[in-house]
C-alpha cells in the first residue's frame, strides 16, 4: 500500500506539467467551493455577532400586539397592561438562567435635546437602577445613578462615551448641563459597554439594521421620564442571561412571566426577541443563493474528474508494456488496479489540497478587495479534500480496471 502511494507520487512528480494541468479542474472546483463556503460562513458569523453581540448575553423583551411589536414610543400604556414595577423585576431575577433584569423607556431618535446650541441626535433611555448592570455598562468617569437620584427625582443624566465626544466636542461632560424637552439635566457620568461590539457595516442596508445599536445614547432615571414626556409610556424589559446558551430559554421564560402577570386579555403579549432566530433567518437568505453557486462549482469538479479519467487512460496506454511485464512476472490484477486507483487518488488529493489553499487565499483576497467577511471552516476543508480524493477513485476506476484486465501477451508486444 505505502509502496503504491510512494510510486504514485513519483509518477505524478515525473510528469509535473501534465499532472498540474490534470489537477487544474479539481483545483478550480475545490477553490471555488472553499471560497464560497468561507464567505458564507464569514457572513453568517458576522450577522450573528452584529445581532447578538459578543458576550453581553442580553435579551430584549417587548410588548407585542396581535403578534407584531407594539411601538412603545410616543404612545400611552394600552389598556389591560400595567407598568413593570420593581417587584416584577425581582420576580424575573428568580427565573432560571436570568442574571439581571431591568425595565426602561426609550426614544430611538430623541429630539429636543441640546447642549448649548448643539442639538443632539441619538437615543434617549429612561432607565431603572439595574439597567447598567443588565447591559454590562461600566462608568468611565463621574458616577452612576444613586438611590437619591431616583427617590428625589433629581434631573441627572449619564452619557455614553460616543456622545461625550460628539455632543460635548471632546470636553469633559461631567458637571455640564443639557436640556431635554426644555428641562435642564446635569450630566453626572460617562459610561461605555464593557464588550464593545462595533457592528460591521458595509452598506446602507446594514446601517439601518444595526444603526440603533451603533448610535450614541443618553440615559436619565426613568422617574424623570414623566418630567420631560409627561405620560406613562409602556416599558421594555431587558434581561441578561447567565450564559449565551441560556439566552433563548431565559428570554422566553421572562416574557411568559410578564405576559401572565402584567397583562389582561389576549390582544397584548410580551415577547423576547429571538436574536438567534433572527440571525438564522438572515443567514438562510444568503444560504440559498450560495447553495446554487456551490452546485455550479460542483460541475467544474465533474469536468475535473473527467479530465483525470482521460489522462489516466492515456497513462494506461503509455504504460501498456510495463503493465504487461508486471502481470507476466506475477502481479495480480488487483495489484495493477490499486496501482492506478492510487495514482488517480493521489493526483486528485493533491489537487484538492492545492484547491483548498487557493480557495482560502482567494477568500482572503476577495475580503481585502470587496470587504466580504471570511471564516475558514475546517470541516469544509477536510470534506473538500476527501471529496476530491473520492473523485479520483471514481474516475480512476475505469482506467484502472482497463489496466488490470490487459492481456499480458498483447501488452508485452505493445510498442
Amino acid at each position, binding site marked *: 500500500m505505502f509502496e503504491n502511494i510512494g510510486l504514485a507520487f513519483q509518477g505524478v512528480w515525473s510528469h509535473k506539467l501534465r499532472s498540474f494541468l490534470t489537477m487544474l479542474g479539481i483545483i478550480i472546483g475545490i477553490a471555488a467551493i472553499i471560497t464560497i463556503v468561507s464567505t458564507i460562513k464569514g457572513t453568517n458569523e458576522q450577522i450573528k455577532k452584529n445581532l447578538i453581540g459578543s458576550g453581553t448575553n442580553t435579551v430584549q423583551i417587548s410588548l407585542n400586539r396581535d403578534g407584531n411589536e407594539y411601538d412603545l414610543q410616543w404612545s400611552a400604556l394600552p389598556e389591560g397592561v400595567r407598568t413593570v414595577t420593581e417587584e416584577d423585576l425581582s420576580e424575573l431575577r428568580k427565573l432560571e438562567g436570568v442574571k439581571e433584569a431591568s425595565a426602561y423607556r426609550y426614544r430611538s431618535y430623541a429630539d429636543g435635546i441640546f447642549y448649548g446650541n448643539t442639538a443632539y441626535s441619538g437615543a434617549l433611555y429612561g432607565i431603572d437602577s439595574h439597567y447598567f448592570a443588565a447591559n454590562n455598562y461600566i462608568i468611565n468617569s463621574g458616577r452612576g445613578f444613586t438611590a437619591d437620584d431616583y427617590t428625589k427625582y433629581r434631573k441627572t443624566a449619564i452619557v455614553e462615551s460616543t456622545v461625550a465626544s460628539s455632543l460635548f466636542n471632546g470636553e469633559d461632560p461631567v458637571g455640564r448641563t443639557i436640556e431635554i424637552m426644555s428641562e435642564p439635566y446635569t450630566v453626572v457620568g460617562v459610561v461605555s459597554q464593557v464588550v464593545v461590539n462595533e457592528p460591521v457595516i458595509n452598506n446602507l442596508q446594514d446601517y439601518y439594521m444595526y444603526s440603533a445599536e451603533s448610535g450614541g445614547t443618553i440615559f436619565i432615571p426613568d422617574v424623570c421620564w414623566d418630567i420631560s414626556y409627561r405620560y406613562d409610556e409602556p416599558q421594555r424589559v431587558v434581561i441578561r442571561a447567565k450564559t449565551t446558551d441560556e439566552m433563548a430559554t431565559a428570554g422566553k421564560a421572562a416574557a411568559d412571566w410578564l405576559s401572565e402577570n402584567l397583562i389582561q386579555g389576549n390582544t397584548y403579549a410580551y415577547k423576547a426577541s429571538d436574536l438567534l432566530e433572527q440571525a438564522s433567518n438572515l443567514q438562510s437568505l444568503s444560504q440559498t443563493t450560495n447553495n446554487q453557486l456551490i452546485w455550479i462549482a460542483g460541475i467544474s469538479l465533474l469536468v475535473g474528474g473527467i479530465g483525470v479519467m482521460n489522462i489516466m487512460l492515456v497513462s494506461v496506454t503509455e504504460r501498456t508494456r510495463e503493465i504487461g511485464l508486471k502481470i507476466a512476472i*506475477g*502481479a495480480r490484477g488487483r495489484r495493477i488496479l490499486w496501482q492506478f486507483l492510487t495514482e488517480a487518488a493521489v493526483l486528485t488529493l493533491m489537487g484538492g489540497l492545492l484547491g483548498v489553499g487557493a480557495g482560502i487565499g482567494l477568500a482572503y483576497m476577495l475580503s481585502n478587495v470587496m470587504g466580504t467577511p471570511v471564516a475558514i471552516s475546517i470541516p469544509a476543508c477536510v470534506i473538500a479534500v476527501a471529496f476530491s480524493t473520492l473523485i479520483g477513485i471514481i474516475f480512476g476506476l475505469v482506467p484502472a480496471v482497463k489496466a488490470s484486465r490487459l492481456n499480458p*501477451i498483447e501488452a508485452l508486444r505493445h510498442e
Partner: protein
Amino acid sequence: MILSMTDICKDYPMGKSVTQVLKNVNLSVSEGDYIAIMGPSGSGKTTLMNIIGCLDVPTSGEYLFGEKDIKKCKKKQLADLRNKKIGFVFQSFNLLPKLTALDNVALPLLYGGVRRSERRRRAKEALERVGLADRVDYRPDQLSGGQCQRVAIARAIVGNPDVILADEPTGALDSQSGAQVMDLFHTLHEQGATILMITHDRNVAEHAETIMHIKDGVLTGGDQDE
C-alpha cells in the same frame, strides 16, 4: 519432473477459419535440463513459450506444472505460479525505466509479498550472481544492452524459480554481449538452474544440452518422442 505437456493444441480463430498454431505438442522438462527450442518465425514457438509460461492457455491437451493442472487454475493462481515458479527473460529486456537495477530485480519479490529488507538482500545477491554488484543503483538507461539483459536475468533468478524461460535472450544484443549472456546461462545451468530457451539462431541453440525444433506447430527432436 518440473513440467509436462501432453497433446497440447492451440487454435487461433482467423476470420471464419481456424488456424492451428500448435499441433499435439509433447514436452517434458526435468530439473537441471537446458533445452533450446529452435524454429523460424511463424513456427509457433512464441505461442508455445506463452503457454509454457502460463501467460496463455492451450485449446486442448494436458499441461501439468509440478502437480498443478494448469487448465484448472484460476487467474490468481496462474499469477502466483508465474511469480514463484517461472523466471522470464525477454528479448527486449522489459526493465522498468524509472527503477534502479536493484528495484527492477526486486519487483517479483514485491508481488510475492516478501519484506522490503529481505527483497533488497536477495536482489543484491541476484545481481552479484550476474556480475553486476557494482551497478545496483544504475537505471536501465545508464546500462548497456548486455548489462540490461543481465539485470533481467537477475530478475528471473531472484525468486529461485523452477524454470527460467528465455525468449530470444540475445536477439537484441551484439555478438559480444550475446556471448556474455550465453556464458551466464551456462554458469547458471552448472549451478543447477533449469533453462528453457527459444531462438531462431543455431549458434545460440548450440549452447543448450538438448535442441528441439518446431515447425508449423509441430515439435520434434531431443529425447522427446517423435
